[in-house]
């Protein structure tokens, strides 16, 4: 973690608050209170942290293989849609399963949806990796186009195929009860679910992959020095495609906390830039999985903390969180704010 960058970002944010005539200490207090004040607030912070762990890991995996995954946003939305479609599909074929309450069938039902999400996201990531490795297409361009395409495709599915009959909101029908993870009771009713735990587990898995497996080592080598890696007999193109597929799958899982948890359905625009914030999360963590969890928590708390600014202050809006996030990344990537040893 980059303490100086975080501190500098916070200072800029509080200066911005002072600039519009608010007491910075009051603003900071409001954010701290909204982020961690009650058990429910802590829970909501963890709810926002969950997708950020996944997208942060996604960007981190690509980054360490020498690629930039700007498409995490699209992969997350596509994955969430795939999980919803799977849940609705399974629900209509096996109506008994959709409302099952015993643990066994529920775990299977949710795993099937998670698999669909990971495959959809992974496929989108793989496509970008393939085009980069085999056709030389710039991954930033292809990812951006895919993001637009995913937005169009999912909104068509929501409005024309899975539209909810009981609301006017742009959202799908609710998934069956069996697919909806129950909230962990510690957090005063905030929908912190098993998907948060899965995020932490995924971080451990990514750590294990890079530190303890042959394939992970090949990927790190590809990122560190592709030319040397080629001479060592490793197909760097293959490593790139694999890295992007894994990155896509991780991002694809990021939306599950919402569609198979809190909301229990796919809502258009449910992702408040989780994919793009994931870039910030990964960068701040220097690509290290354990640090990704910590920095996701920081950004989750910022997001939750800023929500109350709209009504607790007169002039400051929740956009302050975005400003602080942008500043933190900007500072974190510049040499001026590095510690003694940069990661």
């Amino acid at each position, binding site marked *: 973690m980059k303490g100086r960058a975080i501190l500098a970002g916070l200072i800029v944010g509080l200066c911005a608050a002072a600039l519009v005539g608010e007491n910075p200490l009051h603003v900071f207090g409001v954010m701290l209170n909204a982020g961690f004040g009650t058990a429910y607030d802590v829970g909501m912070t963890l709810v926002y942290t969950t997708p950020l762990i996944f997208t942060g890991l996604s960007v981190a995996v690509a980054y360490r293989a020498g690629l930039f995954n700007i498409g995490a946003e699209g992969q997350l939305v596509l994955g969430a849609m795939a999980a919803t479609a799977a849940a609705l599909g399974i629900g209509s074929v096996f109506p008994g399963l959709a409302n099952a309450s015993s643990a066994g069938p529920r775990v299977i039902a949710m795993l099937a949806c998670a698999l669909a999400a990971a495959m959809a996201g992974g496929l989108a990531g793989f496509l970008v990796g393939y085009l980069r490795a085999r056709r030389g297409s710039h991954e930033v361009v292809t990812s951006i186009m895919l993001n637009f395409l995913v937005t*169009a495709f999912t909104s068509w599915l929501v409005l024309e195929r899975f539209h909810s009959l009981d609301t006017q909101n742009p959202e799908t029908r609710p998934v069956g009860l069996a697919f909806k993870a129950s909230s962990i009771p510690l957090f005063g009713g905030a929908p912190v679910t098993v998907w948060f735990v899965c995020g932490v587990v995924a971080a451990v898995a990514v750590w294990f992959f890079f530190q303890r497996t042959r394939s992970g080592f090949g990927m790190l080598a590809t990122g560190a020095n592709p030319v040397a890696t080629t001479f060592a007999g490793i197909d760097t193109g293959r490593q790139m495609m694999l890295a992007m597929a894994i990155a896509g799958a991780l991002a694809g899982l990021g939306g599950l906390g919402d569609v198979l948890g809190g909301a229990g359905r796919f809502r258009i625009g449910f992702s408040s830039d989780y994919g793009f914030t994931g870039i910030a999360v990964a960068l701040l963590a220097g690509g290290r999985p354990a640090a990704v969890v910590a920095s996701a928590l920081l950004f989750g708390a910022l997001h939750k903390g800023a929500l109350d600014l709209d009504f607790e202050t007169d002039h400051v809006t929740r*956009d302050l969180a975005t400003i602080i996030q942008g500043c933190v990344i900007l500072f974190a990537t510049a040499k001026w704010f590095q510690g003694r040893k940069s990661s």
Partner: protein
Amino acid sequence: MSAILDFEWIMSSLRLALPLLLAAMGGLICERSGIVNIALEGLMVAGALCGAIVVHATGSQPTGLFAAALAGGIAACVYAAFAIHGRAQQVVAGAAFNMLAAGAAPYVTKALYGISGGTPSMESPPGTDGSGEVLLYATTALALALPFGIAWFLGKTRAGLFLRFAGEEPRALESAGINPASVRFGAVVASGVLAGLGGATLSVLLSSSFARGMTGGRGFMALAAVIFAGWRPVPAALVCLGFAGADAAQIRLQGGRHAVFGIALPVQFIQALPYLITLVAVALRSGPSRAPRFLGRES
């Protein structure tokens, strides 16, 4: 198709191309000097916001455009400082810059006007007396001439040669006694001026206020056009015109129901068409496109 591709379509294509063209030319200058410019989107936001604020305050569109160019240039200084002197990862710094701009714009409108959705629209837009039309045509003409101007600048002038060397072989430039960092800084600022102007065409010329999310990914589309055209000015402009033409046709097509081989085409698919075409075109381009050799790298 003849009902769609007519004079009206050409005019609306040109209107839609205006912000793209200006931003793309900015991005091209920047990238040819060796600095990746993902930040185009944020620079457009800065220009669009500042232009709208100044027009709201002064009622003068030319002043608004000038202020937007200035704001884009100043904002680009921040990006350039981090990307060049701060030795930041350029893609990451650009993404961060976009985030900063996206957050700062509603923050500023809230502070100035008490609303976070955008700037209030003007009761009588300054364009209604016809002077706005003239300004729009003049800006469009400028934007259409710009690619040729930049091609000439890069190919035939000394400064253009320095700029290309900063992107291709910065050490050679250094041994000639020119500091590549200064050349790059200038290029980034120029890209900010053009992107800011491009953003302001949206809020000043094509509408009468700034709205949240107004740029809608146009900075990214402009960058895609530059990369797709292999970092060459005139082809990049043609790609921008192609995007705009597809977009204009897409807007017209939304009016009715359309069918291909008897299957009704949903509106979302029509909207996505320009992006799909770009993706397929990028994928079918054989061989790696020739990027400036030191793009994103330090000298």
